[in-house]
Each structure stands twice: as C-alpha cells, then as structure tokens.
C-alpha cells in the first residue's frame, strides 16, 4: 500500500530518491511499439501460453507487452543499486498501460507469462500495478467480465495453477489499492465464489494461499468484508477454520496457508465461539520472541511470536525482544518462502521505513543477509555477493553475532556464507535479531526454544531464550482490532507538547518566543514550526516529565 512502498518501486517511473522537484513523467508519451519480430534472444518468450483469455485487444501488441514484462522480470533483482533512471522496459509499460486497452493487455500478459517458480514474479506484478495509473470503475467492471471467475466455471480447467495464482495476486493487489467502491465492483459474486472455492481441500495449496490473501485484501472494504463473512457462513463448515489445522505443517506452502488462516480468524473473520489464539496459545518456555510493539504496521506475527509473514506491498520489519550488549549470540530462521527477506541484526537506531522500501540492512545500524539475491546488506549497499544457490523453502539461515571480535557471521544450512564487520563502525552494542520481508514472504524464528539445527561448532555462543525474560504483557500478541481499540481509549493531557502530545511542553524557542513543544521534539526542529523563524536557542521551563 502507499506510493513506492515496495523495495523496488522507488526505481520505477521516474520516481527517484532524494528529489524535491519532480520533472514530471516522460515527455515521449504513448510511444507504443508495434514492431514485430521482437522475441527475446534467450527464448524466454516461449513460455507464453497463447489465447488463454481469447484476447481481442489488437491495437496493443501482445508480444511487445509480454516481452517487456519478461525484461522487467529479468532485471528486477538487480535494480536495487543500479542507476536512478527508470529502466526502459518499465517506462514503456508505463506508457502502454496509461490507456485502458494497454492496461488490460498488461494484466493479460502478467497472468499468462509470470512463472510460478521465479521468486521475484509476484514482485513484478506489484511493481507494475503500483507504477501504472490505476483503472477506473468501468475498467474494473470490464476486467471482472474478462476474468469471468466462478465456482465451477471453465476457469479452473482452462487455466494453469500458475495463471490462477497470478490472477489471485492481481485481484488482491487491486482490492487493496482500490479499497472502496471499485473494490466492491471487483468482488463479483463469481469472483467471491471462485476465491472461496479455492479454500477447499482438493485445491493446490499455493492457490489456496493466494486466494486467502486476496480475500483478506478485499475485506479491507467493509462492504466486501460483510459479503465474505456472509458467504463463509453459508458453507457447511467455515473453510478457513478447516485450514487452521495446517499451522506448523511440515509442507512449507501448507504451513503458510495455516498461518494465514489463523491470522484471518484472529484478526479479520472472527468466528463466534472460537477462542482467539493469543488466549489459547502455549507459551511455556518462550523467553524471547518477535516484538509486536517494535514491528512495522502490516507485518503479521504468530501468537507465539516466533513466526512472521508479510502480505503488504511494503518492506515490513521487526526486531526481537532481547537486547544484546556483549558476548556471542546465535539464532536460526527457517524460510518458508524463497523471496526477498533481509535477516540479521539491528540496533534501535535502525529505522523501519517500510513505505520507502528500507529495512534491516538499509542503514548504518543494521546488517542483513538475503538468500534470494544472495547478498549481504549494510547501509543500503550490497556488501558481499556470496556464491552458491539461492535459498529454497526449508533452508535454515544461521545468524551469529560476536561482539568480542566483533563480527557478524551468516550460515546457510550450516555452511558459512559471509562474515561482516562494517556495522560495528556505527554501533558496538545494543543489537537485536531483526528481519525485513517483502510481500508474501514468511519465516520461522528459533531463538533457542528448540534445539538449533546447525549450531556453529567450537564457538561458545548463548541463546536469547536461555537468558531472556518476558513479562506477562510482553508475551501477548494482541489481534489488531483489540490493539486499535486500546489506542482509541488513550487520553491526552492538557499541557502536552503540541507536536507529539507524548511529553510535557516545556520549551520556548528563541528569539521568536513560540512555545508548546517538548524537549524531544524541539531538538529535531530546524526552524520554528509556527513562524518558520530560525532558532538561536531554547529555554526550558522544568525538567521534562515523561507522561507516557
């Protein structure tokens, strides 16, 4: 959600970092190529499955759009540190998709040619949809007609699992971007029946997963949420309840389905008579977990605090509860998906800028390994590019932090892949285990509650779980609706700072004499917020009293 939240979006459509003035979009508008004979030299165009939707869009050249999308797919993993210019293929697609028929062709092409096995496939869909102008309601109605989804219709027979997965990703993304009347228009009775039918037992788990995520995104519009709830109630047994049994499954896709089902039941489609997971979860012997109070807004954390997943189109981050001041420490994660995740270490100074696409490894105070692109990230730069195969579901990443040497070491399935030291120029202590996730990424953390799979040999490390202590409140990961309710009941004191309302207002700015600010805010000011006068000094009334 949001403009440019995806880790890669900042590179598209002339959106560049560090710019105050926009140059506006490309001046060469609608330069749609109609040239033929544009087949990729590496033959990837062969993946194209013709006529799945029976395309009637002749003005926009289908092959051109297919080729451009495959080009974007080919370069997207390398975009992160490359030139600030928009890649040509992306720019061209942007122009094509500015017109309705072009936009619809782009949807067609994405459905047909984004392969299931490329971990960056979903990224390409989200980048392209985020970057092109959004369709109006008429186009949405047209799209629903083209998809013509239904429970028992021909869709399931005619389209491959991969194509159907792509349809679900696109539906989910549009449902989120167009929350409101257009999202209602998109969720036709046929579409709803189709998505719910994918929650049944005989369906490929990958389709169940993305259908569940799409339903979750449709439910962001209240009217849709009601329709979905009503529809689920007409089923003999709520299919989401049945899917919950997959929590913790040994099959990595099923495990994701189980996690998402549980999350939906706790947060979104609450079922009467079912205990919320946080009330029934067994937290015995858990002394360190992911800190739900120190996580990006949309990150989903399991009720035991040891599993996290992102389904937002943002780069979502989280830190662990346990701070490290000194010594040698180790934890492991098991990846359930194989896309972009940056996992490692961060201090509290590391900022979670999920809407900018910055996470762990993207500032000086953090370092992270991403086994999808096989890169070590620090200070928003690729520090190392170790060899070897990219990670696959089930791979175990080991993270060792040695503050005595000091060094950070990453292991993949027990093999050392990288050693890093530069982060210690920024911070010597105060580290937390931390991770960032792109859309649809998911992993399990082991902070020592269970035996480690690949403990580093001959290194006297400690585990957070053996040393950590959590109080009763810290252990509870509240569902969102309860959390927001708690926030709404908070009140604000009369004499609080007019900027943050968190602390007492004690500061008067000089020479303009404007007041009503706390010390914490005042030190961040470059000029007076009221009159924009520059600040020569500040007068403080009393020592600040923390009201939080």
């Amino acid at each position, binding site marked *: 959600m949001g403009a440019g939240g995806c880790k890669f979006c900042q590179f598209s459509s002339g959106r560049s970092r560090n710019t105050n003035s926009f140059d506006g979009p490309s001046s060469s508008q609608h330069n749609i190529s109609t040239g033929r004979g544009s087949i990729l030299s590496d033959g990837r165009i062969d993946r194209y499955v013709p006529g799945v939707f029976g395309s009637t869009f002749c003005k926009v050249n289908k092959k051109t759009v297919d080729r451009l999308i495959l080009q974007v797919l080919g370069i997207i993993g390398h975009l992160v540190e490359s030139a600030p210019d928009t890649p040509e293929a992306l720019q061209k697609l942007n122009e094509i998709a500015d017109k309705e028929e072009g936009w619809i062709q782009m949807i067609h092409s994405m459905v047909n040619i984004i392969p299931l096995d490329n971990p960056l496939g979903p990224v390409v869909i989200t980048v392209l949809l985020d970057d092109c*102008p*959004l369709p109006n309601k008429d186009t949405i109605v047209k799209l629903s007609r083209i998809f013509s989804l239904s429970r028992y219709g021909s869709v399931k027979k005619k389209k491959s699992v991969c194509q159907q997965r792509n349809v679900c990703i696109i539906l989910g993304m549009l449902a989120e971007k167009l929350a409101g*009347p257009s999202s209602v228009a998109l969720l036709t009775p046929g579409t709803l029946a189709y998505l719910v039918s994918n929650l049944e037992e005989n369906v490929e788990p990958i389709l169940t997963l993305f259908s569940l995520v799409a339903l979750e995104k449709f439910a962001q519009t209240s009217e849709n949420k009601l329709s979905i709830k009503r529809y689920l109630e007409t089923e003999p047994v709520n299919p989401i309840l049945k899917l919950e049994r997959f929590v913790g499954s040994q099959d990595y896709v099923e495990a994701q389905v189980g996690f998402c089902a549980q999350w939906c039941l706790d947060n979104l489609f609450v079922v009467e008579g079912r205990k919320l997971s946080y009330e029934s979860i067994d937290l015995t012997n858990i002394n360190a977990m992911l800190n739900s*109070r120190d996580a990006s807004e949309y990150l989903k954390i399991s009720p035991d605090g040891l599993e996290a997943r992102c389904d937002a189109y943002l780069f979502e981050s989280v830190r662990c509860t346990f701070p490290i001041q000194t010594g040698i420490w180790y934890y492991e994660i098991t990846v359930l998906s194989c896309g972009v995740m940056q996992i490692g270490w961060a201090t509290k100074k590391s900022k*979670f*800028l999920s809407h900018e696409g910055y996470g762990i490894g993207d500032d000086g105070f953090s370092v992270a390994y991403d086994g999808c692109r096989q890169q070590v990230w620090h200070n928003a730069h690729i520090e190392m590019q170790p060899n070897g195969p990219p990670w696959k579901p089930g791979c175990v990443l080991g993270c060792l932090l040695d503050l005595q040497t000091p060094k950070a070491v990453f292991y993949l399935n027990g093999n050392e892949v990288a050693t890093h030291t530069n982060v210690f120029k920024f911070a010597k202590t105060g580290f937390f285990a931390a991770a960032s996730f792109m859309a649809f990424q998911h992993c399990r953390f082991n902070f020592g509650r269970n035996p480690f799979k690949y403990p580093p040999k001959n290194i006297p490390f400690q585990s957070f779980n053996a040393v950590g202590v959590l109080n009763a409140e810290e252990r509870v990961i509240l569902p969102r609706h309860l959390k927001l309710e708690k926030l709404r009941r908070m009140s604000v004191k009369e004499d609080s700072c007019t900027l943050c309302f968190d602390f007492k207002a004690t500061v008067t700015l000089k020479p303009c004499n404007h007041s009503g600010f706390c010390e914490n805010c005042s030190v961040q000011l470059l000029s007076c917020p009221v009159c924009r006068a520059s600040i020569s000094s500040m007068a403080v009334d009393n020592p600040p009293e923390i009201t939080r």
Partner: protein
Amino acid sequence: MAALPRRIIKETQRLLQEPVPGISAIPDESNARYFHVIVTGPEDSPFEGGSFKLELFLPEDYPMSAPKVRFITKIYHPNIDRLGRICLDILKDKWSPALQIRTVLLSIQALLSAPNPDDPLANDVAELWKVNESEAIKNAKEWTRKYAVEN
C-alpha cells in the same frame, strides 16, 4: 505495530469528531497511519461535482516529516501528474510539524480551486492551461465526469 504517537491518535479523533466540510479522512482498519481520503471538487472549479479519492500515509517520523499524499482518482490538473503525485510546497520543503492532516487536505482542496500552471508537475496539462485555458478547463471537466463521478 510500533507504538502509535499520541499526536496521530489525537488528530484522528478530531478528524472523525469534527470533519472538515468537503473532506473525509478515515483511518485504515488495520493501519492507523494510513488514511482513505475523499475530497470533493470545490464549487466553481472544473472539478465541481467530482469526488476524488486520495491516499495519505504518515511516515515513521511524522510530524517531523510531511505526510505522503497521492490522488488515486485520475485528475486533469497542472500540479498533479498521472500517477496522482502532487506538487505542493507544504508537502515538500515548506512542511512544518505544526501543520496537520487537516491543513494538508485543505491545501489540496485549495489547489483544486487555484491550479498553478507556472509550477507544473504535469507538463502537457500545464502547457495547455497556459496557452488555451478554456480548452484545459473543458478537459478537466470531462475527466471529472469520467473518473470522479460515481454513477
């Protein structure tokens, strides 16, 4: 969820209790920093009769940095480009933490009343606005009818 600053809670409460005429800003059900915004086109402007959807996000360091706002509904306006990005000084270098969601949205509504083709973001629109204002206004009205009026 990171702890939500009281500033955001307070602003949200006020937006819901005392809404600004012609503007609705509703926080997302699952993200208190993300707002679904609808601005109605001001009277006597080419955008009259339209409801324009925007998204507004409060970044982590808000109010020290400006909210991120963008039009979701297509609009023909010299200071708004085709991806909905807005050229408005208070969203950039003229931001002040004393400004609020409310004041930002009022400024955007004012920008609809008073397009400024001399500081353009959408170059082709601005050009037409300068050389043939009546034609540009005609286009703006047409886009409003086409994209911003719900049937």
